[in-house]
Every structure is written in structure tokens, then in C-alpha cells.
């Protein structure tokens, strides 16, 4: 488990990339108060989803506009076909906690 930040640092509509202490970069989103965590790298080509456009609980890739459902990690349109992984994330005592174990196989 990783303490990422305080919830004030991830206000609604915002995103964040976590690279420290995780096997592969993870993107965190605050979608209208609900916090989600998914793999940061798009499954299509090389783009960071934390840089994407957040709309409801979907994020649109900043390179070729594939959209991913933050709840399931599944792409909702081309050009992405494979899902991104989702990770459990909770907010406790005002801290955003990401539940991945260091060294978890990718």
C-alpha cells in the first residue's frame, strides 16, 4: 500500500501520475469525488493516461482518443483494444491510499 497524497491535492476533475514505489506507472483520477487508479500507459501506443481528458468516469487518451472506463479499465472505443489494469484505491483520514504491493508482478 502506498500513501499517494492528501485528497486536497487531487481535487475533482484532476489526475495524477504515480511512478515511485509501483511496478509500472499508475494514473489516479478524481472523478466527481470518486478516486480511481488504473495503469498510466495506454494499451494502444505510448501515451500517459494521467494526461488524458476526464469526463465522468471515462478518460480519453491524449494521443489517439481511445476512451477507458475507470471502473473496469476497459476501452470503450478504438484504437485501444486491451484493457488497462485497475487498482484499489481508498481515501482514509484525508489521505489517498493506493493498494498495490511493491514488486507485484506486472
Amino acid at each position: 500500500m502506498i500513501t499517494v497524497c492528501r485528497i486536497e491535492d487531487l481535487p475533482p476533475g484532476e489526475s495524477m501520475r504515480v511512478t515511485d514505489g509501483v511496478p509500472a506507472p499508475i494514473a489516479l483520477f478524481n472523478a466527481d469525488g470518486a478516486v480511481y487508479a488504473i495503469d498510466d500507459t495506454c494499451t494502444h501506443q505510448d501515451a500517459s493516461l494521467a494526461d488524458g481528458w476526464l469526463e465522468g468516469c471515462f478518460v480519453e487518451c491524449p494521443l489517439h482518443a481511445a476512451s477507458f472506463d475507470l471502473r473496469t479499465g476497459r476501452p470503450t472505443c478504438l484504437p485501444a483494444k486491451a484493457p488497462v489494469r485497475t487498482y484499489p484505491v481508498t481515501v482514509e483520514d484525508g489521505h489517498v491510499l493506493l493498494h498495490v504491493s511493491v514488486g507485484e508482478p506486472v
Partner: protein
Amino acid sequence: MKTIAVIGASLAGLSTVRALRTEGYDGDIVVVGEERHQPYDRPPLSKDFLKGDISADALALGSAEEYEELRVRWLLGRRAVGLDPAARAITLSDGQELHADGVVIATGAGARTVPGADGLAGIHTLRSLDDAEALRADLLNGLPRVVVIGAGFVGAEVASTAHRLGLQVTVIEALDVPLERALGREMGLLCSSLHTDHGVRLQCGTGVTGFSSGNGRVTGVHLADGRLVPADVVLVGVGVRPATDWLAGSGVHVDDGVVCDTGCATNVPQVVAVGDVARCPHPFTGRHARIEHWTSAMEQAGTAARTLLSGTSAPPPSRPPYFWSDQYRIRIQLAGHVLPGDRPELLDGDYESRSFTAVYRREGHPVAVLAMDQPKLFNRLRRTLVPAVAAAAP
């Protein structure tokens, strides 16, 4: 409609096949492709694929399972050589004749070259996977001196990749300012300075008059100002020509591409065109020009499919044209359309660090946004752009 023939087995053709099925078309689909490969992605050909970071398999646009689901009959490795709309017939290079109720023209474009390049080993153009494999083999053969003719996006990406492979690279551009037409003077200069930032030589304002050679292989490039630039490998990146030769005599209106209306309909009923080959009036830019961008080929496919199935021209979405380019590990993104006189205004970052976002304004309205390595802000601003028609209004 019982049979639709899609001519051209690449991004636009495949995207149209997908859109036809999404729209509920249940009849036969035949796809004719000149290349022997199933549809693959071209942008990596000058980037990761040329560098050797990804394999040819990774370029595939679809999969065997998807093609089975789409129920496509492929006729690959042969070209369409004629179209007779009255008989609804397409003649192929192997003599076969296809009959179809609807035709999708998706033949894209082919690389232009320069006089004197034909028949000399070491001189390449880059449009197809086979081109990329040949160029890559030549780049890996010793430590060749590389000359890129044309500082457009494909030329610039090849220069960047060759530089990253550790090669000595010179870029030659006939215009005084590279990319001026796409980006304007200021930003054209800025983007082309990525070459000189990395020690790649850039010669602007001088054309190429021919080549020197020995034993059938290029040894140098002659410039209009009299100089000779030594070269072991040359990439000619001087733009493309729409692949419309096969439509000669068909009655389909061709003038720098297949002339279409906004819904991708040609002047011939039940014949639509899509992708790099199609010249449609653009709802956002207001221009009637071909758009040679990946995203445009994807987006037009839905419009073309709806037009073909409904028999009336479908309205296209009014989105600003978009493309990206990766050079020297920097991602350049442009949305909208730049005219001479549209002035870029820096919104974030700074030009020196090669990380910034700039917005072009026309009559005070944002009409285009250009970014280097600022995808997040770029994508926010891309949504605020104003169509040319609206921007031109007093």
C-alpha cells in the same frame, strides 16, 4: 445493398469496414489491397518501427478474430486498375473482375520522389512497411551518412530516428522555413530547430538537382547552389500524391484526390471516398482539401459508411483536424488549421525548453493549438477551438 467493395486495405479502408458493420450492414464486404499485408499502422514506420523498438507484428490494425467477426473477404497483393460505375465493376491487376453495389475508395496516397532518384540503390521513400524495412536495413548497414530531402513531418521523424541510431544526418529543405504552410513561419522555425538542437545539419532554401553515384549506388546529393552533400543513404520525404490513377476514365471526379462532398460522397452514386485520397470540404476549417492525418481517416470512415448505406450524404462531425509527430523524444501535437497571418501566442511553458502550448488566433478567436510535450493542456485547449467560419465572422 448486397456487396460492398473497399479498395485500399489500410486505415481508412478497415475503419470503413468496421463502421459499415457497426451501422448494421449485413451483406458481403470485399477488400482489395495492393500490398500483400493486412492493414497495419503507418505512423510508427518513421518512429518506433524504424528505430527497431517494435516489430512488424505490433503494427497490425486488426486481428484474425476481428476479421472473422467482420466477415471480410480479402483480395491482397493486387491492385484495382479500373472502375466502371455503370456496370458496377472493378477490374483488378490479376484480370479478375469484381461486381459490387457500393464502392469505397480508400487508396490513400503514395510517396512523391525527385528526378534522378529512380534506379539508384540507397535512395528511399517511406510510405509502406516494405519501404520501412528496406530503409531500416540500409540504416543499419555500417554507419552510413544519411541525407533527408524534405523537412516535413515524415522527413523530420526519419532524421530524428537516424540520429537516435547514432548516424550523421543532414536535412535538406527547399523552402526557407520548413513546415511554414502547416505551422506558420514562427513555429515552423521553432519545430525545425529541433534538428539543430541535436546536431543534425539543416540546409534550407536550396533544392536538390540530382545525385552522384558509383556502382549503381548513391554517393551524394547535388544542391541547386552547386554544393554536393556526401550521402550513403537518402530518404526522399517530399510529400505524397493521392492514389487515383486507377480511376482514370471511370467518371469519378478527380482533382488532387477524389472530389467529395462533406459526407464523403463522390459525384458517382454509391461510390464514396475516405482517408488520404479523399478531398472533402471540412466543416471545421471550411477548406476543400485533402487531410493526410491518421485521425481524419478514422473519423471520416463513419461518415462514409453512413453515406453509402443511407444513399444521402451524412453530416460529418465538426472537429478540428488533429495530428501528432514524435521527433527527438518530443511529442508535437497540432489541432485546428493555421493560415498565414494567424499569430501563435504562448500560453504555457517556454519555447527554449521545447515544452510549451501556443494558441493561434484569427480575429481574436482561437483557431489552432500547437504543443510540444504538453498533452494535457493541449487536449483541454483543443476543445475550445472555434471553426474557421465562426472565426471569420465579423
